[in-house]
């Protein structure tokens, strides 16, 4: 009852529920004491004064008036004294032991093979629980039963073996730990999911993860999750039962290192890694990757590089085949397997049919092979009716140009025309003749003969306003794509206020030159030798704080940045690219533009956009405010550098009108892993061939037994819509937009597993050993896990948690005060005193 009343006064549950043990305390006890001491004479004075001043009033009414006034004074003393209730809760914080169990796809691989000694040791763990579960299991291990046990263990998958272990460990190891430790249990695959020992041991169908969930193993994320799940609590140990194959970022070893670095005195989260599976390598051939250009033109022949990894088949010859979907082999190459090293095999692909093709490289499973699931890999190829036509205008042959020049020439699906302004200058072409000699026109249709234009650091001499207007019109009306890569000399600085600037997604300030002679000491006078002087604009980075590209969430889903098919890996990859020393950030992003990447200037200033895109009329315009993309080649060559440029150019390029249809639907990427957003872009016209003016549009996404609708929002100009959607289930999905006869469009997306789970089949003991060592833990073989309790350190911490609540600051005090005042006024009015 008292508790209920206190809660009514706004006292917290912790105090109200523990009222019996609560103490009354005073915020200002001295004021309360003085007030109460003064209250007695004050009460005597009030009573005496009432008696003297109101002799004609009845004693009862006079006393009532005195009580009201004394009551008000008493309340004031109470408020001044600030009474509150204090109670304490004592918490026993046991150190945490976390059990993380890997249930990713790689745990479906065979646990064995085991030799007799290994099998005997493992059988000792499994036998007690097994005998209680089923009568069909062999009896406890002895010499006679060894063979049967070995056979049974060798037939188990890693996941089955782990479940068998857990049935035994539950009672023998983990439940007894509860006396001294708090135990939390998690499953990990693509996500970390809390569970219980009982659930793990039961291993019901309901508790099994979906195929999409088993697609990855996030061991680093699991360790982080345990840390986040134990605020203020010491972690005695993380028991990690896994095959050691972590396939996503963050790397568990990096996570452990960062934790130790933050707390160097003691290990904050020692990992006790329990490898599940045999030490002995499995005989296996894996097709790790098939790599070929993302886009080719019809009738082209390109090379597909197939990467193989194998072990246990040294010297064996195998045939590698290339298939278009499930069709017959298009080409075959024979190779001799070399154990322990990656091998590349080249296969020819002749594109005979336009459209999206799913190519598959396969190696027929060998008789002794343990895992056949990793004997193929797929890649999507878009076969265009003709090569995309690119017009590349550049000022001087800077490094980015030189690398792009090579890459574009190799790209058979890109037909590039190069114009280099410095070459025209060297050939003494007069400025007024430059556009004509370069083949640039004032007629939009001539520009629109290309699918995309790439403007480098060119000057207005090559691209005067007349030609700019034609280019702008071709973008707006013909859907020509435009990519602008800024430079230090002219672009975009000499185009501020020009027709071209009007369609760029960012505005730029025509800044004054920032440096001149690159060899001159800034502190010294300018060199007067033979050194050329260069005028540069833009934002140079301080030597001590180079720029790093920060891909925005919108950028991470942009097709230009798609590398791995996994958005978190892509963002990590791009944000980890080498630093650079110059940028052309926009001073302001235009309202309809999408910000794709930023830089963070030194001194904690506001981030500035360096990559942005916007829709302009029927076309797209992308600005790259950096001229050091060649740095993306570090250690890997063209792989990332041209992946970005090739994808950016193709994304922006005008879409070929199929059967005279102006509308188009674009879904990127076409192959994704579950959990990765898919970007959907739509351009739709009505029957009058005018862009649809609605603010949104819907596309239907269907698969056998599934259907959902995704709403696309209008971006920029009428007719352009964009949205994204994240698939969670594996399969081929159909994306459809029905806008009437003029815009009935479809596209497909394949949601596929990453192949990473089964690409490497052995238990990664080395990684687990390093993880355990770095974290301050230990690698413990399953047979030795009984010693785990001896290795766990940490005592229960008794923690007192105080709770306090004011007793005066509530509605009751206010009510009493108002009541006493009203009673005083009411009595006086009744008595005719006022």
């Amino acid at each position, binding site marked *: 009852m008292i508790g209920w009343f206190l809660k009514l006064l706004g006292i917290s549950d912790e105090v109200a529920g523990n009222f019996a043990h609560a103490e009354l305390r005073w915020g200002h006890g001295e004021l309360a004491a003085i007030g109460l001491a003064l209250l007695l004479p004050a009460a005597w004075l009030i009573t005496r004064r009432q008696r003297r001043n109101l002799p004609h009033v009845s004693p009862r009414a006079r006393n009532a008036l005195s009580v009201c006034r004394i009551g008000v004074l008493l309340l004031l003393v109470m408020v001044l004294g600030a009474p509150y209730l204090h109670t304490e809760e004592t918490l026993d914080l046991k150190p945490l032991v976390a059990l993380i169990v890997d249930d990713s796809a790689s745990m479906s691989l065979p646990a064995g093979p085991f030799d007799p000694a290994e099998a005997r040791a493992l059988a000792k763990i499994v036998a007690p629980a097994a005998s209680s579960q089923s009568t069909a299991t062999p009896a406890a291990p002895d010499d006679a039963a060894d063979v049967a046990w070995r056979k049974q263990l060798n037939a188990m998958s890693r996941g089955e073996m782990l479940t068998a272990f857990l049935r035994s460990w539950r009672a023998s190891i983990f439940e007894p730990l509860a006396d001294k430790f708090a135990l939390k249990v998690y499953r990990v695959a693509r996500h970390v999911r809390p569970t219980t020992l009982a659930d793990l041991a039961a291993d019901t169908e309901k508790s099994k993860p979906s195929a999409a969930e088993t697609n990855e193993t996030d061991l680093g994320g699991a360790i982080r999750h345990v840390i986040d799940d134990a605020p203020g609590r010491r972690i005695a140990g993380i028991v990690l039962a896994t095959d050691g194959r972590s396939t996503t970022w963050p*790397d568990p070893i990096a996570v452990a290192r960062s934790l130790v670095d933050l707390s160097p005195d003691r290990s904050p989260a020692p990992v006790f890694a329990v490898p599940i599976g045999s030490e002995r390598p499995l005989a296996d051939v894996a097709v790790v990757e098939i790599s070929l250009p993302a886009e080719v033109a019809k009738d082209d022949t390109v090379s597909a590089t197939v990467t193989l990894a194998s072990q246990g088949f040294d010297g064996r010859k195998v045939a590698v085949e290339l298939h278009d979907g499930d069709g017959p082999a298009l080409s075959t190459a024979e190779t001799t397997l070399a154990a322990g090293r990656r091998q590349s095999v080249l296969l020819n692909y002749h594109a005979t049919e336009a459209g999206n093709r799913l190519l598959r490289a396969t190696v027929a499973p060998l008789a002794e092979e343990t895992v056949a699931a990793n004997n193929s890999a797929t890649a999507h190829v878009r076969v265009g009716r003709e090569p995309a036509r690119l017009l590349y205008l550049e000022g001087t042959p800077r490094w980015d140009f030189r690398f792009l020049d090579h890459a574009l020439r190799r790209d058979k699906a890109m037909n590039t025309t190069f114009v280099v302004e410095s070459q025209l200058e060297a050939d003494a072409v007069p400025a007024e003749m430059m556009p004509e000699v370069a083949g640039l026109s004032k007629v939009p249709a001539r520009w629109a003969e290309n699918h995309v234009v790439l403007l480098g650091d060119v000057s207005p001499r090559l691209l005067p306003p007349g030609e700019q207007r034609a280019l702008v019109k071709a973008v707006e009306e013909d859907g020509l794509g435009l990519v602008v890569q800024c430079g230090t000399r002219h672009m975009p600085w000499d185009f501020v206020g020009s027709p071209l600037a009007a369609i760029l997604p960012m505005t730029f300030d025509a800044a004054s030159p920032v440096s001149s002679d690159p060899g001159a000491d800034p502190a010294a006078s300018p060199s007067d030798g033979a050194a050329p002087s260069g005028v540069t604009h833009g934002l140079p980075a301080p030597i001590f704080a180079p720029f790093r590209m920060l891909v925005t969430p919108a950028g991470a889903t942009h097709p230009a940045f798609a590398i791995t098919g996994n958005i978190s890996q892509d963002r990590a990859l791009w944000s980890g690219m080498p630093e650079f020393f110059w940028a052309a950030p926009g001073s302001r992003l235009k309202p309809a533009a999408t910000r794709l990447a930023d830089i963070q200037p030194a001194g904690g200033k506001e981030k500035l956009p360096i990559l942005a895109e916007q829709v302009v009329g029927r076309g797209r315009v992308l600005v790259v405010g950096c001229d050091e993309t060649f740095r993306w080649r*570090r250690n890997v060559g063209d792989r990332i550098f041209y992946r970005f440029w090739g994808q950016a150019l193709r994304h922006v390029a005008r879409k070929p009108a199929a059967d005279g249809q102006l509308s188009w639907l674009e879904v990127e990427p076409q192959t994704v892993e579950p959990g990765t957003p898919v970007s959907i872009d739509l351009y739709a016209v009505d029957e009058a061939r005018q862009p649809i003016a609605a603010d949104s549009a819907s596309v239907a996404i269907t698969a056998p037994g599934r259907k959902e609708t995704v709403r696309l929002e209008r971006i920029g100009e009428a007719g352009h819509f964009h949205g994204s959607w994240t698939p969670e289930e594996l399969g081929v999905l159909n994306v459809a937009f029905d806008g009437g006869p003029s815009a009935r469009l479809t596209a497909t997306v394949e949601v596929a597993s990453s192949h990473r789970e089964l690409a490497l089949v052995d238990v990664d003991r080395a990684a687990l050993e390093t993880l355990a060592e770095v974290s301050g833990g230990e690698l413990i073989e399953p047979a030795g896990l009984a010693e785990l309790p001896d290795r766990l350190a940490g005592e229960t911490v008794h923690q007192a948690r105080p709770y306090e609540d004011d007793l005066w600051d509530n509605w009751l005090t206010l009510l009493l005060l108002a009541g006493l005042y009203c009673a005083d006024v009411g009595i006086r009015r009744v008595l005719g005193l006022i």
Partner: protein
Amino acid sequence: MNLHRRQLLAALALCLPLAVVRAAFADDPPPAEAIPDAQEMIRVEAAVDRALDHLAQKQDAEGWWPQQVNGGGPNNGVNAFGLLAFLGRGHTPGRGPHQLTVGRAMNYILSTQNEQGLYASPGPSQGPMYEHALATLSLIEAYGAVGTVEMRRSLQKAIDLIVASQNPQGGWRYQPRPGDADLSVSVMQVVALRAAINARLNVPQSTTDRAAEYVKACVVPAGGFSYQPGGGPTCAQTAAGALSMQLLGHFDDPAVAKALGMLQSKPYNGQLDSYFYYTSYYAMQAHFQAGEEQWAAWHPRVRKFLLETQSEDGSWPGHGEEKFNGPAKTYSTALGAMCLDVYMHYLPAYQR
């Protein structure tokens, strides 16, 4: 502690893209060690950075490097290698921590051009065309970051001189005029011409065609390349010949594969050739151009040796080559760094 944490962060920053790239393209490990282990790359980059710090300290205020050949004085061959070592690590004029070093070196070499177009070493020189070709190559690469009309004019003049100095057989010799020829001088002209084409300077097709004929004439049928047609193979000329063939577009010529096979059959150490660094540099580039299988068979040996033999001060010992290129260790340090720079993939002239 702060330093420790910063080092860790730097290591993680490098590991991150490498790890993701490896996961993205080839899982673990990459194809035939096309990309070394992330930790190994940290060691490689640290070794190059120490070498560049050493070179930056040794640079004269005018922009040249001491080399102590024939009594000393600036030599544009050494200066060019110094400049290329920085460019190959991504240090371009006007940007980054070594911008002054790079800018001074570039300006110094440019200032040595004579009326004929030759980047003439002010100090003693045994072969001006060696130094001219290297200087031209280094400046063409630097031109990618500077891009002025004056620089292009200077470079075109330098290339025109190379074109004019080619002999009727297609080769080049020490002096800037047609005469006899050798593969050692010719390979440097070939690389400079290749860089010039890449930088859109004017190079007649006939020049590169004739150069290819000369290089082919130096092929030794049993394997390798000789200094002059009809001679016996050496490791230095074999590496130079293979790279020349590749840069002239003859990647699939059987002589290239044979040459690389011959190099791979030798133990890689300081006795590889009396021109150890010259051989190492061209062999490293030739194996890189040959593709992943050949590259994987070669680069780990070079990397291991260079990482093990680098001195505390960041320099590399001469391994006997100092008798040709001076005891100042500028030449050996620059070439050692350039061998490891190949991992960066930054120099446009050598892109595969």
